[in-house]
């Protein structure tokens, strides 16, 4: 796994973006950028060479599930690994995210270990 890959963190709460950013730095990923909802994130993804997207679900503007669908519908972005980190914990939502093509799903509150495990798993599959 390339620890220098460009990662976009999308969450409307700046505290959560900071937490994820710090946890990623702890795991060796330092090349991170932030966006506060799908509407801001999508143009960043389209114009930047991001290799990994971590997004919340419940955000004003464009929600994370819609961002995920937009990414999968975009020819240039459709292969982008996407990890959802969200407080949304209804079964039908997790199923919906899975059907929309999410690569991993972490429910808040989460631990540093969980985040690391899911990221490792995603990139093991991507590499395989």
């Amino acid at each position, binding site marked *: 796994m390339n620890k220098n890959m460009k990662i976009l963190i999308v969450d409307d709460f700046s505290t959560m973006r900071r937490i994820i950013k710090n946890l990623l730095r702890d795991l060796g990923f330092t090349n991170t950028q932030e966006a506060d909802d799908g509407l801001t994130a999508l143009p960043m993804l389209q114009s930047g060479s991001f290799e990994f997207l971590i997004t919340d679900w419940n955000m004003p503007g464009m929600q994370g599930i819609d961002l995920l669908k937009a990414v999968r519908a975009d020819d240039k972005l459709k292969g982008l690994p996407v990890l959802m980190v969200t407080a949304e914990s209804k079964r039908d939502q997790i199923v919906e995210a899975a059907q929309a093509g999410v690569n991993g799903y972490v*429910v808040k509150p989460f631990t540093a270990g969980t985040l690391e495990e899911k990221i490792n798993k995603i990139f093991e599959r991507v590499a395989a």
Partner: protein
Amino acid sequence: MAESAVQIDDKLQLAKSLVSHLESGDDDGAVSVIAELAGFRDSLLFQEVGRLTRELHDAINGFVTDARIADIAQNEMPNAAERLRYVIATTEQAANTTLGAVEDSLPLADSLRSDARHLGDQWARFKSRQLNVEDFRELSNELSHFLDTTQATTEELHNKLSEVLLAQGYQDITGQIIRKVIDLVNDVESKLVELIRLSGHRAKPAEGTESVSAKDIAAHGPAVPGVDTGDIVNGQDDVDDLLSSLGF
């Protein structure tokens, strides 16, 4: 409430007969005519009060049967109280986690500082050639020990700081819950304003003021124990089980 021509004619007749009663000195007759005239005014007043009462009754009935109001009173208000209690519990837990980590960290930082100070003194003595061979051997052992414990202690400090970092996730969780309660308060406020308008004259229940139900929004926000029941996963393990059942 325009008076009909018949009523006006009747009143004119009565007025004329009142004048003739008074001119002829017939007091009893005059009083009975005055009573009859006042009756016209009273019946109009009663009609108007009756009409207003009916309007108010209908408006209040319409207000009370508004499903949104019933939902607010029966479900959302108790839920809001439960949500706010969950906010207290969550912030308390985060504060305790943070305080605990800080309380564990301070002695670690203190012991690193005092060990470093002690070794610094010995090192200064060594550089000014005040240590004999025996003292130097002791210093050397202490230094090795210090370097080992420093690695362990800083790793523990790092873990404690990570605990503090993760504990701040409460702000996101509670922020989402409080936003929901704010939406409810705004909803209740608009309903109260409506009620105040209704209790005033000429009020009509506003059309299309139904607020957007939370159920129409795809995102539900954090699950609150005791409030959000039903098809909710219970932690990350449940999520992983569900996803693996879907072939993940």
